[in-house]
Protein backbone atom coordinates (compact mmCIF):
# COMPACT_ATOMS: atom_id res chain seq x y z
CA UNK A 1 0.00 0.00 0.00
CA UNK A 2 1.24 3.49 -0.86
CA UNK A 3 0.14 6.30 1.42
CA UNK A 4 0.37 9.90 0.28
CA UNK A 5 -0.16 13.17 2.11
CA UNK A 6 -0.86 16.31 0.08
CA UNK A 7 -0.06 19.75 1.48
CA UNK A 8 -1.68 22.76 -0.08
CA UNK A 9 -3.64 25.84 0.78
CA UNK A 10 -7.43 26.03 0.83
CA UNK A 11 -8.52 26.65 -2.77
CA UNK A 12 -5.44 25.15 -4.44
CA UNK A 13 -7.15 21.83 -5.06
CA UNK A 14 -5.11 19.42 -2.95
CA UNK A 15 -8.24 17.36 -2.34
CA UNK A 16 -8.92 17.20 -6.07
CA UNK A 17 -5.37 15.93 -6.66
CA UNK A 18 -5.87 13.09 -4.21
CA UNK A 19 -9.28 12.28 -5.64
CA UNK A 20 -8.11 12.16 -9.25
CA UNK A 21 -5.25 9.80 -8.46
CA UNK A 22 -7.59 7.56 -6.44
CA UNK A 23 -10.06 7.47 -9.33
CA UNK A 24 -7.28 6.64 -11.77
CA UNK A 25 -6.05 3.80 -9.54
CA UNK A 26 -9.59 2.44 -9.16
CA UNK A 27 -9.87 2.48 -12.97
CA UNK A 28 -6.84 0.19 -12.96
CA UNK A 29 -8.73 -2.18 -10.63
CA UNK A 30 -6.60 -1.19 -7.67
CA UNK A 31 -8.10 -0.23 -4.33
CA UNK A 32 -7.84 3.41 -3.40
CA UNK A 33 -9.06 5.95 -0.92
CA UNK A 34 -8.88 9.75 -1.02
CA UNK A 35 -10.17 12.22 1.50
CA UNK A 36 -9.59 15.72 2.83
CA UNK A 37 -8.31 16.69 6.23
CA UNK A 38 -11.64 17.05 7.88
CA UNK A 39 -12.49 20.51 8.97
CA UNK A 40 -13.90 23.88 8.04
CA UNK A 41 -12.49 24.93 4.68
CA UNK A 42 -10.71 28.28 4.61
CA UNK A 43 -9.20 29.72 1.48
CA UNK A 44 -5.45 30.19 1.79
CA UNK A 45 -5.03 28.27 5.05
CA UNK A 46 -2.79 25.19 5.09
CA UNK A 47 -4.81 22.08 4.25
CA UNK A 48 -4.01 18.42 3.85
CA UNK A 49 -5.49 15.66 1.73
CA UNK A 50 -4.79 11.97 1.94
CA UNK A 51 -4.50 9.15 -0.53
CA UNK A 52 -4.04 5.41 -0.20
CA UNK A 53 -3.55 3.03 -3.11
CA UNK A 54 -3.28 -0.69 -2.60
CA UNK A 55 -3.52 -3.91 -4.59
CA UNK A 56 -5.68 -5.36 -1.77
CA UNK A 57 -8.78 -3.92 -0.02
CA UNK A 58 -7.90 -1.08 2.34
CA UNK A 59 -9.06 -1.65 5.91
CA UNK A 60 -8.11 1.63 7.45
CA UNK A 61 -10.05 4.82 8.07
CA UNK A 62 -7.56 7.14 9.65
CA UNK A 63 -5.51 10.04 8.41
CA UNK A 64 -2.14 9.25 6.88
CA UNK A 65 0.44 9.77 9.63
CA UNK A 66 3.40 7.94 8.06
CA UNK A 67 3.31 8.67 4.35
CA UNK A 68 5.39 7.05 1.63
CA UNK A 69 5.13 10.27 -0.33
CA UNK A 70 4.38 13.87 0.50
CA UNK A 71 3.19 16.27 -2.19
CA UNK A 72 3.75 19.98 -1.60
CA UNK A 73 1.65 22.09 -3.94
CA UNK A 74 2.87 25.39 -2.59
CA UNK A 75 6.46 25.88 -1.38
CA UNK A 76 5.50 28.90 0.75
CA UNK A 77 3.94 26.37 3.12
CA UNK A 78 7.44 25.41 4.26
CA UNK A 79 7.48 28.57 6.35
CA UNK A 80 4.63 27.38 8.52
CA UNK A 81 4.51 23.59 8.40
CA UNK A 82 6.90 20.66 8.40
CA UNK A 83 5.78 18.47 5.52
CA UNK A 84 8.31 15.77 6.47
CA UNK A 85 6.55 15.11 9.79
CA UNK A 86 6.04 11.39 10.39
CA UNK A 87 7.24 10.29 6.98
CA UNK A 88 8.68 6.84 6.40
CA UNK A 89 12.48 6.56 6.12
CA UNK A 90 12.33 5.86 2.40
CA UNK A 91 9.60 8.41 1.66
CA UNK A 92 9.77 10.79 -1.26
CA UNK A 93 9.12 14.51 -1.06
CA UNK A 94 7.34 15.73 -4.21
CA UNK A 95 7.62 19.48 -4.32
CA UNK A 96 6.60 22.35 -6.53
CA UNK A 97 9.78 24.37 -6.54
CA UNK A 98 11.99 26.56 -8.70
CA UNK A 99 14.90 26.26 -6.29
CA UNK A 100 18.12 24.54 -7.29
CA UNK A 101 19.02 21.06 -6.13
CA UNK A 102 21.42 22.14 -3.39
CA UNK A 103 18.82 24.26 -1.67
CA UNK A 104 16.29 21.42 -1.79
CA UNK A 105 18.80 18.95 -0.35
CA UNK A 106 19.42 21.41 2.46
CA UNK A 107 15.68 21.56 3.13
CA UNK A 108 15.21 17.78 3.05
CA UNK A 109 18.56 16.20 3.84
CA UNK A 110 18.89 12.44 3.27
CA UNK A 111 15.52 12.21 1.56
CA UNK A 112 14.44 11.35 -1.95
CA UNK A 113 13.17 14.53 -3.54
CA UNK A 114 11.17 14.91 -6.74
CA UNK A 115 10.86 18.50 -7.87
CA UNK A 116 9.34 20.46 -10.70
CA UNK A 117 8.44 24.09 -11.27
CA UNK A 118 4.74 23.33 -11.32
CA UNK A 119 3.72 26.98 -10.85
CA UNK A 120 5.46 27.87 -14.10
CA UNK A 121 3.94 24.90 -15.96
CA UNK A 122 0.47 25.63 -14.60
CA UNK A 123 0.75 29.30 -15.56
CA UNK A 124 1.80 28.40 -19.09
CA UNK A 125 -0.57 25.48 -19.66
CA UNK A 126 -3.63 26.55 -17.67
CA UNK A 127 -3.14 30.30 -17.49
CA UNK A 128 -3.34 30.20 -13.68
CA UNK A 129 -0.80 29.01 -11.14
CA UNK A 130 -3.08 26.39 -9.59
CA UNK A 131 -0.79 23.40 -9.43
CA UNK A 132 -2.96 20.54 -8.23
CA UNK A 133 -3.28 18.66 -11.50
CA UNK A 134 0.25 19.56 -12.59
CA UNK A 135 1.74 18.08 -9.45
CA UNK A 136 0.01 14.76 -10.14
CA UNK A 137 2.50 14.33 -12.99
CA UNK A 138 5.35 14.76 -10.53
CA UNK A 139 3.80 12.32 -8.06
CA UNK A 140 3.36 9.68 -10.74
CA UNK A 141 6.96 10.17 -11.88
CA UNK A 142 8.21 9.80 -8.31
CA UNK A 143 6.07 6.85 -7.21
CA UNK A 144 4.41 5.09 -10.18
CA UNK A 145 1.31 5.19 -7.99
CA UNK A 146 -0.87 5.02 -11.10
CA UNK A 147 -0.44 5.10 -14.85
CA UNK A 148 -0.55 8.49 -16.49
CA UNK A 149 -3.06 7.16 -19.04
CA UNK A 150 -5.54 6.12 -16.31
CA UNK A 151 -5.78 9.73 -15.18
CA UNK A 152 -7.26 10.91 -18.43
CA UNK A 153 -10.79 9.59 -17.81
CA UNK A 154 -11.20 11.07 -14.34
CA UNK A 155 -9.66 14.38 -15.47
CA UNK A 156 -11.97 14.61 -18.48
CA UNK A 157 -14.98 13.84 -16.30
CA UNK A 158 -13.96 16.46 -13.75
CA UNK A 159 -12.83 19.33 -15.98
CA UNK A 160 -14.87 18.97 -19.18
CA UNK A 161 -13.61 21.48 -21.76
CA UNK A 162 -10.68 22.44 -19.54
CA UNK A 163 -9.52 18.83 -19.28
CA UNK A 164 -7.02 18.86 -22.15
CA UNK A 165 -5.08 21.76 -20.64
CA UNK A 166 -4.82 19.89 -17.34
CA UNK A 167 -3.72 16.75 -19.15
CA UNK A 168 -1.04 18.78 -20.94
CA UNK A 169 0.06 20.24 -17.61
CA UNK A 170 0.54 16.93 -15.78
CA UNK A 171 2.06 15.25 -18.82
CA UNK A 172 4.61 18.06 -19.07
CA UNK A 173 5.26 17.93 -15.32
CA UNK A 174 5.83 14.18 -15.60
CA UNK A 175 8.51 14.84 -18.21
CA UNK A 176 10.12 17.76 -16.40
CA UNK A 177 10.19 16.33 -12.87
CA UNK A 178 13.69 15.61 -11.64
CA UNK A 179 14.45 13.18 -8.86
CA UNK A 180 17.29 13.58 -6.36
CA UNK A 181 18.29 10.34 -4.71
CA UNK A 182 19.96 10.63 -1.30
Amino acid at each position, binding site marked *: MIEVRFHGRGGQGAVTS*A*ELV*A*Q*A*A*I*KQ*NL*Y*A*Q*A*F*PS*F*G*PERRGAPVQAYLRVSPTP*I*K*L*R*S*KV*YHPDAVVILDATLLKTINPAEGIKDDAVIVINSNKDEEELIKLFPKLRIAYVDASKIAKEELGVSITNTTMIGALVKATNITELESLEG*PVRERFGILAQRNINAYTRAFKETKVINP
Partner: protein
Amino acid sequence: MKKGVEVSVAAALAVQLARAEVISAYPITPQTHIVEYLSELVANGELEAVYINVESEHSAMSACCGAAAAGARTFTSSSAQGLELMHEMLYVVSGLRLPVVMTTVNRALSSPLSIWGDHADVMAARDTGWIMLFCENGQEVVDSLIMAYRIGEDRRVLLPVMVNVDGFSLSHVIEPIEFPSQEEVDRFLPPYQPLFSLHPDRPVTMGAYGMPEIYSEAKYAQETAIINSKDIVKEVFDDFANRFGRRYNLVETYNTEDADFVFVALGSIGENIKSAIEELKKEGKKAGLVQLRLYRPFPWKELIDVLKDKKRIAVTERAAPGGALNGPLYTEIATLLYNNGISTKMENYILGLGGRDVMPETFIDIYKGVAREVSEVPTKEKNFMFIGVRG
Protein backbone atom coordinates in the same frame (compact mmCIF):
# COMPACT_ATOMS: atom_id res chain seq x y z
CA MET B 1 -17.05 -2.17 -12.79
CA LYS B 2 -16.19 -0.18 -9.70
CA LYS B 3 -16.16 3.60 -9.79
CA GLY B 4 -14.15 5.94 -7.61
CA VAL B 5 -16.86 8.06 -6.02
CA GLU B 6 -17.21 10.08 -2.84
CA VAL B 7 -19.44 8.12 -0.48
CA SER B 8 -21.87 11.06 -0.09
CA VAL B 9 -22.27 11.25 -3.86
CA ALA B 10 -22.66 7.48 -3.95
CA ALA B 11 -25.48 7.76 -1.41
CA ALA B 12 -27.21 10.31 -3.64
CA LEU B 13 -26.81 8.00 -6.63
CA ALA B 14 -28.36 5.17 -4.61
CA VAL B 15 -31.35 7.37 -3.79
CA GLN B 16 -31.61 8.14 -7.50
CA LEU B 17 -31.52 4.42 -8.31
CA ALA B 18 -34.25 3.90 -5.69
CA ARG B 19 -36.36 6.50 -7.56
CA ALA B 20 -37.14 8.67 -4.54
CA GLU B 21 -40.04 10.95 -5.41
CA VAL B 22 -39.84 13.63 -2.72
CA ILE B 23 -36.59 14.84 -1.19
CA SER B 24 -36.59 17.48 1.47
CA ALA B 25 -33.59 18.92 3.23
CA TYR B 26 -32.13 21.91 4.95
CA PRO B 27 -29.02 22.87 3.05
CA ILE B 28 -26.54 24.24 5.61
CA THR B 29 -24.23 22.87 8.29
CA PRO B 30 -24.46 20.13 9.39
CA GLN B 31 -25.39 18.95 5.91
CA THR B 32 -23.43 16.84 3.43
CA HIS B 33 -22.96 16.45 -0.29
CA ILE B 34 -25.74 13.86 -0.28
CA VAL B 35 -28.60 16.33 -0.61
CA GLU B 36 -26.44 18.83 -2.49
CA TYR B 37 -25.85 16.25 -5.21
CA LEU B 38 -29.49 15.12 -5.14
CA SER B 39 -30.60 18.71 -5.70
CA GLU B 40 -28.35 18.77 -8.78
CA LEU B 41 -29.79 15.50 -10.06
CA VAL B 42 -33.31 16.86 -9.67
CA ALA B 43 -32.43 20.26 -11.18
CA ASN B 44 -30.77 18.56 -14.18
CA GLY B 45 -33.79 16.38 -14.76
CA GLU B 46 -31.79 13.24 -14.02
CA LEU B 47 -34.08 12.32 -11.15
CA GLU B 48 -37.80 12.79 -11.46
CA ALA B 49 -38.52 14.02 -7.97
CA VAL B 50 -39.74 17.03 -6.07
CA TYR B 51 -36.93 18.66 -4.14
CA ILE B 52 -38.19 20.74 -1.24
CA ASN B 53 -35.67 23.13 0.26
CA VAL B 54 -36.90 23.92 3.74
CA GLU B 55 -35.89 26.24 6.54
CA SER B 56 -34.94 23.66 9.17
CA GLU B 57 -34.41 19.96 9.70
CA HIS B 58 -37.65 19.83 11.65
CA SER B 59 -39.39 20.98 8.49
CA ALA B 60 -37.38 18.59 6.33
CA MET B 61 -38.68 15.62 8.28
CA SER B 62 -42.17 17.17 8.40
CA ALA B 63 -42.19 17.51 4.62
CA CYS B 64 -41.10 13.88 4.25
CA CYS B 65 -43.81 12.90 6.70
CA GLY B 66 -46.50 14.65 4.69
CA ALA B 67 -45.20 13.40 1.35
CA ALA B 68 -44.97 9.81 2.62
CA ALA B 69 -48.51 10.10 3.99
CA ALA B 70 -49.60 11.13 0.50
CA GLY B 71 -47.95 7.98 -0.83
CA ALA B 72 -44.60 9.22 -2.09
CA ARG B 73 -41.22 7.56 -1.72
CA THR B 74 -39.26 10.08 0.33
CA PHE B 75 -35.71 10.82 1.39
CA THR B 76 -33.88 13.22 3.64
CA SER B 77 -30.50 13.42 5.26
CA SER B 78 -29.03 15.16 8.23
CA SER B 79 -26.38 15.00 10.92
CA ALA B 80 -25.70 15.97 14.50
CA GLN B 81 -27.67 19.07 15.57
CA GLY B 82 -29.85 18.67 12.49
CA LEU B 83 -30.98 15.24 13.61
CA GLU B 84 -31.69 16.65 17.07
CA LEU B 85 -33.90 19.30 15.55
CA MET B 86 -35.78 16.53 13.71
CA HIS B 87 -36.17 14.54 16.90
CA GLU B 88 -39.83 15.29 17.50
CA MET B 89 -40.72 14.37 13.92
CA LEU B 90 -38.77 11.09 14.08
CA TYR B 91 -41.38 9.82 16.53
CA VAL B 92 -44.27 11.18 14.48
CA VAL B 93 -43.07 9.42 11.34
CA SER B 94 -42.48 6.06 13.00
CA GLY B 95 -45.78 6.30 14.91
CA LEU B 96 -47.61 7.02 11.66
CA ARG B 97 -45.85 3.98 10.18
CA LEU B 98 -44.48 5.94 7.22
CA PRO B 99 -41.53 4.34 5.40
CA VAL B 100 -39.39 7.47 5.11
CA VAL B 101 -35.74 6.68 4.43
CA MET B 102 -32.94 8.92 5.65
CA THR B 103 -29.21 8.89 6.00
CA THR B 104 -27.77 10.13 9.21
CA VAL B 105 -24.21 11.15 8.57
CA ASN B 106 -23.07 10.57 12.12
CA ARG B 107 -21.42 13.55 13.74
CA ALA B 108 -20.73 14.86 17.21
CA LEU B 109 -23.14 17.10 19.08
CA SER B 110 -22.28 20.54 20.39
CA SER B 111 -21.00 21.69 22.82
CA PRO B 112 -18.11 22.10 22.28
CA LEU B 113 -18.95 23.02 18.72
CA SER B 114 -17.88 20.17 16.48
CA ILE B 115 -18.58 19.14 12.93
CA TRP B 116 -16.60 15.90 13.17
CA GLY B 117 -17.71 12.34 13.37
CA ASP B 118 -19.06 10.27 16.25
CA HIS B 119 -22.30 8.54 17.20
CA ALA B 120 -23.78 11.00 19.69
CA ASP B 121 -26.47 12.01 17.21
CA VAL B 122 -27.86 8.57 16.42
CA MET B 123 -27.60 7.45 20.06
CA ALA B 124 -30.01 10.22 20.99
CA ALA B 125 -32.40 8.92 18.31
CA ARG B 126 -31.94 5.22 18.87
CA ASP B 127 -35.30 4.53 20.48
CA THR B 128 -37.47 6.61 18.16
CA GLY B 129 -38.99 3.56 16.49
CA TRP B 130 -36.90 3.74 13.34
CA ILE B 131 -35.23 0.71 11.84
CA MET B 132 -31.51 1.47 11.95
CA LEU B 133 -28.70 0.16 9.80
CA PHE B 134 -24.98 0.90 10.13
CA CYS B 135 -22.40 0.80 7.35
CA GLU B 136 -18.69 0.11 7.28
CA ASN B 137 -17.86 1.31 3.76
CA GLY B 138 -19.31 3.11 0.76
CA GLN B 139 -20.55 -0.03 -0.94
CA GLU B 140 -22.58 -0.85 2.13
CA VAL B 141 -24.07 2.66 2.10
CA VAL B 142 -25.29 2.25 -1.48
CA ASP B 143 -26.63 -1.25 -0.89
CA SER B 144 -28.22 -0.36 2.46
CA LEU B 145 -30.09 2.59 0.98
CA ILE B 146 -31.56 0.48 -1.80
CA MET B 147 -32.53 -2.21 0.72
CA ALA B 148 -33.88 0.38 3.17
CA TYR B 149 -36.80 1.22 0.88
CA ARG B 150 -37.64 -2.46 0.31
CA ILE B 151 -37.59 -3.07 4.07
CA GLY B 152 -39.53 0.00 5.15
CA GLU B 153 -42.20 -0.22 2.45
CA ASP B 154 -42.91 -3.91 3.02
CA ARG B 155 -46.52 -4.09 4.23
CA ARG B 156 -45.44 -6.33 7.08
CA VAL B 157 -43.15 -3.51 8.23
CA LEU B 158 -44.25 0.02 7.24
CA LEU B 159 -41.64 1.79 9.28
CA PRO B 160 -39.02 4.45 8.57
CA VAL B 161 -35.44 3.35 8.05
CA MET B 162 -32.29 5.27 9.00
CA VAL B 163 -29.02 4.40 7.28
CA ASN B 164 -26.10 5.53 9.43
CA VAL B 165 -22.99 6.73 7.64
CA ASP B 166 -19.96 7.80 9.66
CA GLY B 167 -19.25 11.50 9.18
CA PHE B 168 -16.07 12.30 7.24
CA SER B 169 -14.30 8.98 7.73
CA LEU B 170 -16.95 7.52 5.45
CA SER B 171 -19.04 10.37 4.05
CA HIS B 172 -16.15 12.34 2.56
CA VAL B 173 -14.00 9.51 1.25
CA ILE B 174 -13.57 8.64 -2.41
CA GLU B 175 -13.45 4.88 -2.73
CA PRO B 176 -14.30 2.11 -5.20
CA ILE B 177 -18.03 1.42 -5.34
CA GLU B 178 -20.07 -0.78 -7.63
CA PHE B 179 -23.46 0.49 -8.73
CA PRO B 180 -26.23 -1.86 -9.79
CA SER B 181 -28.08 -0.98 -13.00
CA GLN B 182 -31.40 0.85 -12.89
CA GLU B 183 -33.13 -2.25 -14.32
CA GLU B 184 -31.74 -4.48 -11.58
CA VAL B 185 -32.80 -2.02 -8.88
CA ASP B 186 -36.26 -1.65 -10.43
CA ARG B 187 -36.73 -5.41 -10.31
CA PHE B 188 -35.57 -5.53 -6.69
CA LEU B 189 -37.49 -2.45 -5.59
CA PRO B 190 -40.93 -2.03 -7.17
CA PRO B 191 -42.77 1.31 -6.83
CA TYR B 192 -44.13 2.11 -3.36
CA GLN B 193 -47.73 0.99 -2.92
CA PRO B 194 -48.98 2.62 0.27
CA LEU B 195 -51.57 0.79 2.31
CA PHE B 196 -53.30 4.08 3.12
CA SER B 197 -52.59 7.50 1.70
CA LEU B 198 -53.90 11.01 1.98
CA HIS B 199 -56.02 11.86 -1.03
CA PRO B 200 -58.91 14.32 -1.37
CA ASP B 201 -61.08 11.67 -3.04
CA ARG B 202 -60.55 9.11 -0.30
CA PRO B 203 -60.46 11.02 2.97
CA VAL B 204 -58.72 9.35 5.91
CA THR B 205 -57.39 10.75 9.15
CA MET B 206 -53.75 10.22 10.00
CA GLY B 207 -52.20 11.21 13.27
CA ALA B 208 -55.48 11.47 15.13
CA TYR B 209 -55.73 11.58 18.91
CA GLY B 210 -54.78 8.40 20.69
CA MET B 211 -57.00 8.58 23.72
CA PRO B 212 -55.86 6.68 26.82
CA GLU B 213 -58.16 3.84 25.73
CA ILE B 214 -56.17 3.26 22.52
CA TYR B 215 -52.66 4.74 22.90
CA SER B 216 -51.18 1.66 24.54
CA GLU B 217 -52.65 -0.56 21.85
CA ALA B 218 -51.21 1.65 19.12
CA LYS B 219 -47.78 1.57 20.76
CA TYR B 220 -47.99 -2.17 21.26
CA ALA B 221 -48.80 -2.61 17.57
CA GLN B 222 -45.91 -0.36 16.61
CA GLU B 223 -43.51 -2.20 18.90
CA THR B 224 -44.66 -5.52 17.50
CA ALA B 225 -44.07 -4.23 13.99
CA ILE B 226 -40.50 -3.15 14.65
CA ILE B 227 -39.63 -6.33 16.55
CA ASN B 228 -41.08 -8.47 13.77
CA SER B 229 -39.37 -6.40 11.08
CA LYS B 230 -36.15 -8.27 11.83
CA ASP B 231 -37.35 -11.22 9.78
CA ILE B 232 -38.15 -9.01 6.82
CA VAL B 233 -34.76 -7.27 7.08
CA LYS B 234 -33.17 -10.70 6.88
CA GLU B 235 -35.40 -11.68 3.98
CA VAL B 236 -34.44 -8.52 2.08
CA PHE B 237 -30.72 -9.07 2.83
CA ASP B 238 -31.06 -12.61 1.43
CA ASP B 239 -32.89 -11.50 -1.68
CA PHE B 240 -30.28 -8.77 -2.22
CA ALA B 241 -27.50 -11.34 -1.92
CA ASN B 242 -29.18 -13.59 -4.48
CA ARG B 243 -29.64 -10.79 -6.97
CA PHE B 244 -26.53 -8.68 -6.46
CA GLY B 245 -24.04 -11.13 -4.98
CA ARG B 246 -23.23 -9.12 -1.87
CA ARG B 247 -24.32 -10.86 1.31
CA TYR B 248 -25.18 -8.92 4.44
CA ASN B 249 -26.01 -10.23 7.89
CA LEU B 250 -27.89 -8.64 10.76
CA VAL B 251 -24.78 -9.12 12.87
CA GLU B 252 -21.48 -9.24 11.03
CA THR B 253 -18.58 -11.20 12.43
CA TYR B 254 -14.89 -11.14 11.64
CA ASN B 255 -12.50 -13.76 12.91
CA THR B 256 -14.85 -14.59 15.79
CA GLU B 257 -15.00 -18.37 15.44
CA ASP B 258 -11.94 -19.36 17.38
CA ALA B 259 -11.36 -16.10 19.28
CA ASP B 260 -12.18 -15.87 23.00
CA PHE B 261 -11.92 -12.11 22.84
CA VAL B 262 -14.18 -9.95 20.70
CA PHE B 263 -14.65 -6.28 20.03
CA VAL B 264 -18.17 -4.99 19.49
CA ALA B 265 -18.51 -1.91 17.30
CA LEU B 266 -20.83 0.06 15.06
CA GLY B 267 -19.93 1.52 11.69
CA SER B 268 -16.74 2.25 9.82
CA ILE B 269 -14.39 2.04 12.80
CA GLY B 270 -14.74 -1.70 12.24
CA GLU B 271 -12.13 -1.42 9.47
CA ASN B 272 -9.48 -0.13 11.87
CA ILE B 273 -10.41 -2.89 14.31
CA LYS B 274 -10.00 -5.47 11.52
CA SER B 275 -6.52 -4.11 10.79
CA ALA B 276 -5.72 -4.45 14.51
CA ILE B 277 -7.00 -8.04 14.48
CA GLU B 278 -4.73 -8.83 11.53
CA GLU B 279 -1.76 -7.36 13.40
CA LEU B 280 -2.62 -9.43 16.48
CA LYS B 281 -2.83 -12.53 14.27
CA LYS B 282 0.81 -11.99 13.31
CA GLU B 283 1.68 -12.23 17.01
CA GLY B 284 -0.34 -15.45 17.27
CA LYS B 285 -3.13 -13.70 19.20
CA LYS B 286 -6.77 -14.25 18.44
CA ALA B 287 -9.31 -11.46 18.52
CA GLY B 288 -12.61 -11.11 16.71
CA LEU B 289 -15.00 -8.34 15.78
CA VAL B 290 -18.78 -8.26 16.11
CA GLN B 291 -20.57 -5.49 14.25
CA LEU B 292 -24.25 -4.71 14.42
CA ARG B 293 -25.38 -3.96 10.90
CA LEU B 294 -28.94 -3.91 12.22
CA TYR B 295 -29.09 -1.86 15.41
CA ARG B 296 -32.87 -1.40 15.61
CA PRO B 297 -34.63 -3.72 16.06
CA PHE B 298 -31.87 -5.05 18.30
CA PRO B 299 -30.73 -8.39 16.83
CA TRP B 300 -30.44 -10.06 20.21
CA LYS B 301 -30.70 -13.69 19.10
CA GLU B 302 -27.97 -13.29 16.51
CA LEU B 303 -25.79 -11.49 19.07
CA ILE B 304 -26.24 -14.16 21.72
CA ASP B 305 -25.26 -16.81 19.18
CA VAL B 306 -21.90 -15.16 18.59
CA LEU B 307 -21.23 -13.80 22.10
CA LYS B 308 -22.32 -16.72 24.28
CA ASP B 309 -18.99 -18.61 24.29
CA LYS B 310 -16.67 -15.62 24.51
CA LYS B 311 -14.41 -15.02 27.50
CA ARG B 312 -14.00 -11.27 27.14
CA ILE B 313 -16.09 -8.67 25.29
CA ALA B 314 -14.87 -5.13 24.62
CA VAL B 315 -17.73 -2.86 23.61
CA THR B 316 -16.49 0.26 21.86
CA GLU B 317 -18.72 3.31 21.58
CA ARG B 318 -18.41 6.66 19.89
CA ALA B 319 -20.75 8.44 22.27
CA ALA B 320 -20.33 9.65 25.85
CA PRO B 321 -22.65 8.04 28.41
CA GLY B 322 -23.81 11.41 29.76
CA GLY B 323 -24.11 10.21 33.34
CA ALA B 324 -25.42 6.76 32.48
CA LEU B 325 -23.77 3.73 34.03
CA ASN B 326 -22.19 2.83 30.68
CA GLY B 327 -22.47 3.63 27.00
CA PRO B 328 -25.81 2.66 25.43
CA LEU B 329 -24.50 -0.28 23.39
CA TYR B 330 -22.71 -1.78 26.39
CA THR B 331 -25.77 -1.37 28.55
CA GLU B 332 -27.94 -3.21 26.07
CA ILE B 333 -25.49 -6.05 25.53
CA ALA B 334 -24.97 -6.42 29.28
CA THR B 335 -28.74 -6.74 29.69
CA LEU B 336 -28.82 -9.31 26.94
CA LEU B 337 -26.10 -11.43 28.53
CA TYR B 338 -27.67 -11.15 32.00
CA ASN B 339 -31.06 -12.22 30.67
CA ASN B 340 -29.42 -15.26 29.15
CA GLY B 341 -27.52 -16.20 32.29
CA ILE B 342 -24.13 -15.34 30.80
CA SER B 343 -21.60 -13.55 32.97
CA THR B 344 -18.79 -12.86 30.52
CA LYS B 345 -16.20 -10.23 31.44
CA MET B 346 -17.25 -7.06 29.65
CA GLU B 347 -15.40 -3.81 29.13
CA ASN B 348 -16.71 -0.51 27.84
CA TYR B 349 -14.46 1.82 25.85
CA ILE B 350 -15.60 5.30 24.89
CA LEU B 351 -13.50 6.44 21.94
CA GLY B 352 -13.43 8.26 18.63
CA LEU B 353 -15.41 11.22 19.94
CA GLY B 354 -15.75 14.35 17.83
CA GLY B 355 -13.59 13.03 15.01
CA ARG B 356 -10.72 11.75 17.16
CA ASP B 357 -8.80 9.26 15.06
CA VAL B 358 -8.59 5.83 16.66
CA MET B 359 -5.71 3.95 15.11
CA PRO B 360 -5.45 0.14 15.01
CA GLU B 361 -2.72 0.41 17.70
CA THR B 362 -5.34 1.53 20.22
CA PHE B 363 -7.37 -1.63 19.66
CA ILE B 364 -4.24 -3.72 20.05
CA ASP B 365 -3.68 -1.95 23.39
CA ILE B 366 -7.26 -2.69 24.39
CA TYR B 367 -6.73 -6.36 23.57
CA LYS B 368 -3.55 -6.42 25.64
CA GLY B 369 -5.22 -4.63 28.50
CA VAL B 370 -2.83 -1.70 28.37
CA ALA B 371 -5.12 0.94 26.85
CA ARG B 372 -5.17 3.87 29.21
CA GLU B 373 -6.74 7.20 29.74
CA VAL B 374 -3.91 9.62 30.20
CA SER B 375 -5.91 12.26 32.01
CA GLU B 376 -5.10 12.71 35.65
CA VAL B 377 -8.45 14.27 36.40
CA PRO B 378 -9.90 11.82 38.93
CA THR B 379 -13.27 10.30 38.13
CA LYS B 380 -14.88 8.21 40.82
CA GLU B 381 -16.95 5.09 40.30
CA LYS B 382 -16.64 4.95 36.57
CA ASN B 383 -17.68 1.76 34.77
CA PHE B 384 -16.29 2.67 31.38
CA MET B 385 -12.96 3.91 30.09
CA PHE B 386 -12.48 7.02 28.00
CA ILE B 387 -9.74 6.16 25.55
CA GLY B 388 -7.14 8.63 24.34
CA VAL B 389 -7.84 11.46 26.77
CA ARG B 390 -4.70 13.54 27.06
CA GLY B 391 -3.34 14.66 30.40
